[in-house]
Structure formats: C-alpha cells, structure tokens
C-alpha cells in the first residue's frame, strides 16, 4: 500500500508542479538555514575530550588578595603549579603554558621559523590521549631533572626532517640543542580546550618541551598574564615567584573518591598557604571543572551563535507555516477527487495515510535540497571569512539530521491539512460534480 501511495503522491506532485516546487523550496530553505547555523553552533559546542571529558579537570585557585578580582581566575600562578605537582593523588597531572621559539636545524640553509610550543610535564600526552607516531614522551625523571628534550608533531617533523623517524636527532630552539624523543600523530583538538587563552579555535602547538626547563631557559609566556597587584617584575625569577596568573593546570581523576580526596588535599593546601600570608580572601577556594564545565566557564560558544540558532529555528517555523497553508490549499482543491475515492470505498485512514505519504515525500526532497543549501552556504562562508575548518565542516550527524528534521516537520505541518481532507463529507463534493 505504501508504494501505491508513493505513486499517487508522485502523480499529485507532478500535477501541480509550481505549488509543489514552492513547498519544496520553502522547506529546503528553512532546513538549509537551520542546518547552517546549527552546524556552526554544534561544531563550536563539541566536546573534544569525548569519554575522557568527565575524568579530566582543570584546577583553579582563588589566590588573589582582598579588594582585587571578585571571581576565581581561569589560570594559576607558577608557584601554585610548582606546589600542586607535589600531590600524588591524581592519576596524571600537568602544569602548562604556551611559549614559542625560533627553530633551526644542523642544515645551514634552513631558514629559522618561529614556532609556538607548549611547556608541560610528561603526563601531558597521557592526559589528553595524544598518540605517538615515533618514540615517546620524555621520561618522568626529566620532570624533576631538566633535560633538553622535545616532542614534535608529525607535520613539523615532515617540514624539518622530511617525515622520517627523527627520534634521537637534534633541533635547535633559540639556538639551544634539543634531542627529539618523540613524534606525535597529528593532534589538533577543536576547541583547544586545554588552553583557550589564545582563542578557543586556534591551532594546537606543534612542539612540546619539559616544564622543568622553564626556570633555566626562561621561556616567555605567549598566553595571558593576569595580575591582581602591582609587582616589580624584572627578572624571570621575579616572574616565577610573582602572583601573576599565567599557568594552566590539568589533572586526571578517575573515581569520585579520587575527586573527593583531591578536593580535600586542595583545601588543605589553601589553609597551609594562608598561614604564609597568601590566599587572603576569606572565601578563598579551589575549583575543579571537568572539560564540559570548563568549556562553559570560558564561553567557548559565542553568543552570536546562540542568537543565530534561535532565529533560524523561528525561520524554519515560518517555512513550515508557509508550507501548511499551501498544503491546505492544495488538498482542499482536490476535495472532489477525494470525495470520489471515499464514495467508492476508501476509508478515512487510507485517505489520511495517502496524504501523509505525499507530505513525507515533499519533506524528503526539501531535506535533501536543504542539505545542499547548507553545504553550499557553509562552503561560501568558510571561503569568504576564512573560518576555521573545524567550524564549517558539515558534521556527520547533519546528514541524517537534515532529512530527518525535514520529513518530521513536514509531517507535522501536514497533519492538519490531511485531517481536514479526510474528514470532509464525500457527498458534498459529489453533488457539485
């Protein structure tokens, strides 16, 4: 029966090509606009940590003094980073910040390039499930006894060493020789959740150097440096001992007990720091945010995006109302024909089903064409605005969502017209023939 209705639907669509085209156009444009804005929203809203999201926590500490910042700051000080490393409760943990150096090789013809680098502990790679192509992270020992070792990303390895296994070779960072201990596979989480200071959709660093080297090599901070009090910072040692917030700190806690234990440790730490005159605020506290919370804390999804999604959903509703009106017009015009079908034995349910199938077909076409609209507008937007690719890729879910939403909304819009047509009295229409 379904295929018979499909056949009927197709005939009916062909009979009024202009009206059908209008309906498909309306619903496809509505779907196109909605999918476009939903896609940008969803891509910004993605949680790149996946199932690890609830096990990774960013640590925040309310270390500021009285009459300064009101709220807990997203970053922490170097001295707190240094102290937090002493706890062994977390499964993995790493302080970190962004820096950059000039890269040179043994090859004299190699033009130096300036590269961003992440300063972190060896746990960084385990924390964020970064996979290695060659070699491995520097050893845990290096986190305590600094060594000139570096991990680079696959694409940098290609640029500098032509893509061969470069483990054991030397590159020069700001003219100091570093030994390559590992090459990671291409890894560029979007949003760059482990540090959103330089923009949540910026590229991840392509080099990683030990945190323990920071006091020796005096790595400059390429991120935000936030101060709540005026301090004379002249040397790097001043900066390390200062109250400036410029580090991020991530821990991995796998069980609720572990979280509880770590929270307790943190509050003890704050009490202890209060004794030496830091953490002056009476409500000084520590805060742990898992990845999902962290993205919310940092407002990774811009407000404009939300406004767009809201408006485009309203837009889709307009398209549906538009379609509803046209459907009603079309179906009622066909009332005499339906009257005949009813008179020769079709039940109301059958008439209803027949018309719903027709609506579904229109919805399906609308969805498919809408997907094309969305794909087109996303490519135009990404080309014109040089948007991050991460935001303009049509997500896999959209390929299913678009026709699904189109058919579903078309069916909802079709309910009333189909009900109207199947509930009319056949005799009325038969008489006027």
């Amino acid at each position: 029966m379904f295929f018979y209705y499909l056949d009927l639907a197709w005939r009916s669509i062909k009979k009024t090509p202009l009206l059908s085209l209008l309906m498909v156009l309306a619903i496809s444009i509505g779907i196109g606009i909605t999918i476009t804005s939903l896609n940008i929203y969803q891509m910004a809203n993605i949680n790149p940590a996946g199932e690890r999201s609830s096990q990774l926590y960013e640590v925040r500490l309310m270390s500021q003094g009285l009459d300064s910042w009101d709220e807990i700051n997203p970053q922490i000080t170097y001295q707190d980073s240094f102290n937090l490393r002493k706890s062994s409760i977390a499964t993995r943990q790493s302080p970190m910040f962004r820096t950059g150096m000039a890269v040179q090789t043994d090859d004299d013809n190699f033009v130096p390039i300036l590269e961003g680098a992440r300063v972190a502990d060896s746990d960084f790679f385990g924390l964020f499930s970064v996979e290695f192509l060659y070699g491995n992270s520097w050893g845990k020992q290096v986190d305590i006894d600094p060594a000139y070792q570096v991990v680079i990303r696959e694409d940098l390895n290609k640029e500098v060493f032509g893509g061969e296994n470069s483990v054991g070779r030397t590159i020069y960072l700001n003219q100091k020789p570093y030994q390559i201990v590992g090459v990671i596979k291409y890894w560029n989480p979007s949003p760059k959740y482990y540090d959103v200071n330089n923009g949540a959709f910026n590229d991840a660093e392509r080099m990683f150097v030990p945190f323990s080297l920071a006091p020796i090599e005096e790595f400059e901070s390429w991120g935000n440096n936030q101060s709540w009090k005026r301090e004379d910072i002249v040397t790097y040692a001043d900066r390390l001992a200062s109250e400036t917030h410029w580090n991020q700190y991530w821990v991995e806690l796998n069980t609720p007990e572990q979280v509880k234990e770590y929270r307790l440790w943190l509050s003890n730490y704050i009490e202890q720091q209060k004794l030496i005159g830091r953490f002056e605020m009476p409500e000084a506290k520590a805060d742990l945010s898992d990845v999902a919370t962290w993205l919310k804390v940092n407002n990774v999804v811009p407000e404009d995006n939300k406004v767009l999604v809201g408006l485009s959903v309203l837009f889709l509703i307009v398209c549906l109302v538009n379609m509803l009106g046209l459907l009603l017009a079309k179906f009622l015009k066909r009332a005499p024909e339906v009257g005949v079908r009813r008179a020769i034995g079709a039940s109301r349910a059958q008439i209803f089903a027949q018309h719903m199938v027709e609506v579904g077909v229109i919805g399906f076409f609308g969805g498919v064409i809408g997907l094309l609209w969305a794909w087109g507008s996303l490519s135009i937007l990404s080309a014109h605005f040089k948007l991050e690719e991460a935001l303009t890729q049509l997500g896999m879910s959209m390929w299913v969502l678009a026709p699904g939403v189109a058919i579903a909304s078309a069916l909802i819009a079709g309910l009333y017209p189909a009900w109207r047509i199947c509930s009319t009295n056949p005799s009325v229409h038969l008489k006027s023939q």
Partner: protein
Amino acid sequence: MLQIKPIISTLRHNKSGPLLLLLQIILSVAIVANASFIINERVQLMSRESGLVEDEVFDFTVYNFEEGVDYTAQNSRDMDIIRGLAGVKASTTSSMTPLSGGGWSSTFTYGQSEETAKDAPQAAIYYGDEQMVETLGVEMIAGRNFYQSEIESGHPNTANLAIVSQAFATVTWGDEPAVGQTIYAGGYGEQALKVIGVVKTLQGAWVNSSHLDNAIILNVELGLTSFNRFLVRAEPGLMTELKPQIIAALHKENKNRVIDGFTMITEHRKRVYRDHELMATVLSMMVILLLLITSLGLAGMVMFNIERRTKQIGTRRALGAKKRDIVSFFLVENYIICLTGGVIGALVAVQLGRQLMSVYSLPQLELIYPIATVVGLVVLTTVAVILPARKAAKISPAIATRSV
C-alpha cells in the same frame, strides 16, 4: 467603496488559510525586525573610521633569538635599513598595530594636584618615533609632531611626550585645549607626559571595546624584548614586493632572527571584524530568504483562492463589478491580514528584542525597525497580490453561468 464588510465575512467564513497567513506574517515581522536591527548595528560598528591610510600600512615582527643582543641598538640599525628601501614612505617601531586585536593599553592620571587627580579613560598606547604620525597617515589637528631629537629609546618608562587622539582629549579635558596638558603614567606625579599634539582619529586594537577611539602616541623606540614590531607605510600594493626585500635586508644584517607576520591593516580589519561581518551576512541571507518565502507563500495563497473563487468572481463580474473592483477586493483582503499580522508581529518583535537583550549582550530594539518591516511587508503584499489578482480580474463573466 472598499467592501470591507463582505471581505471580513469571507475571511471569517474560511478561517484556516488566512489564520496561517497571519501567523506567518507575525513571525516574519518578529524575525525580520530583530535581524535587520542586529545587521544595522554590526554594519555601523564596521564602518567606524580608524583614522589610518589602511591600504598603505602593514606591520611585521622581528624575533631576535640570539643571546646577548642589545635590542635597542639592533632596532635602530633595523630601522635605518627599512627606511633605506625604495618604496617605503615612512616607518616606525611600534608597541602595537591598530585593529589587530592585541596590544598595549593603560589608564592615566591627570589633574592639577594630587588631591584633585582623576583617572583618564583607558587608551591604547603606541610607542614609536617621529615617523609614527606619517606612517599611520593620521591627521594632526593641533600642536605638533615629535622632533627626531626628542625620541627616547629602550624602556617605556623613558617616555615624556604624548600625542593624543581627539576622542581621548575630549573625554579627558572637554573643551579645554589638550596641547600643553600633562598626564601621568601611573599615579599622580609618576612619569609625566606632556601633550604636544592632537590627531583627529586614531583607533586602538580592540574593536569591541568602548575605548576604541582613545589612543596615545608616546616618544619611545622600544627595545625591551626579543620581539619587535615595525609599521611600514608604502605605496598601495607594494607589500608583496617589499616583504622579500625587507626579509633579505634584515637577514643580511643578522641571520639569527625570524622575520614574520607581514599583514596589511586591511587584513587586520577583516580579521578583527570577522565575527560581526559573519553575523551580518548570515542574518541578511535570512532576511532576504524569509521575505522571498513569505511573498511566494502569499502569491501561492492568492492564486489558490482565485481558482477556488472562479465562479464567485464570474458572478460578481456578471453582476457589474469592474476589473478594478476584483483587484481591489484581493488587495484589501490581504492588506487586512498583513496589517493585523504586522501589528501583532511588531509587538512580538519588541518582546523578542527584549528577551535577546536580557539574555545576550544585545542593545534594545529600536521601534523604527518593526515599523519599517511592516511598511516593507505592505509593499511586498502589493507586489505578491497584484499579479495573480490581475489574472483573476480577467475571468470572464460567462464563467458564472457555466456548469451550474
């Protein structure tokens, strides 16, 4: 004359079609009014003058990674090299680039005594030399530029002269002349800066800041860190040519540095306003498509009504109605729906605008937008109705007598 009574009774007789149209118009007005309001707000943001000759200025950075380099001496050698290149009109070292989204800013203190000292508003700080004004292409409207002999070098705390933007001068001193005033970097009395000139317009780096138009130029060639930024003004379109020349010349002087980040101010502008432009573009797309769909829907409904009422129209024509009467019947019918929908839609729009304002940081919807939308919709209705209605008017009176 306008036969409003029979039209209303027709509408009441057959409710669902007109009701749907009404709903569609209400929603359209609400969306279009708010969207065009946001579009206009963004377009206005983007059309603010930066004061610069944007298509002639570009910036780049030099990263001196060799240990033991005297940055001040290095910068002044680099400056000479850059100024010696053909095609360079003017250039300077700079602490920041206008419209780039990053840079230096601070508040200053001013006043007659420590007790009456006040905070001047936040302003972007351009540290540079006597060629800064010419490089940016900003217009001096009072006082004078720095003399070459007045330029300090090295640390920012050696600055003692200032050129301020007019916006900054007005906010700080009102109608008093700015030239000759003194401001202090830090508290009152700390590092006095004498204002010697005023430029008409000079924007800072942060386009979403309310202090965008406040800017100060201070007389220091910086030599503080391994990073140094240069601003260059060249003939338009010469950047692509100058870039390799600059890199080669500076590398010849000293190989151990990275020279990078060549960007035109026009590119900075595009990047820094990107989100606003994106929002305006997507919303414009939405408004145009929405109006298209609404008018097509309207035309579709009228066409359908004509087909359904063929006999009635024929009868009316047979009874003496003129073609004009038929057209005006359809027009008035749709005007009634459109205006009713428009008024309700305008109320919904204001409500929606209020919601948007309270949840998001959007300004309050101005009333002119819903009103303009309704007017636009009336025009659209006329266009969408008049074509099918003309067709209806052509229905021959003879139709009425047929098939009855």
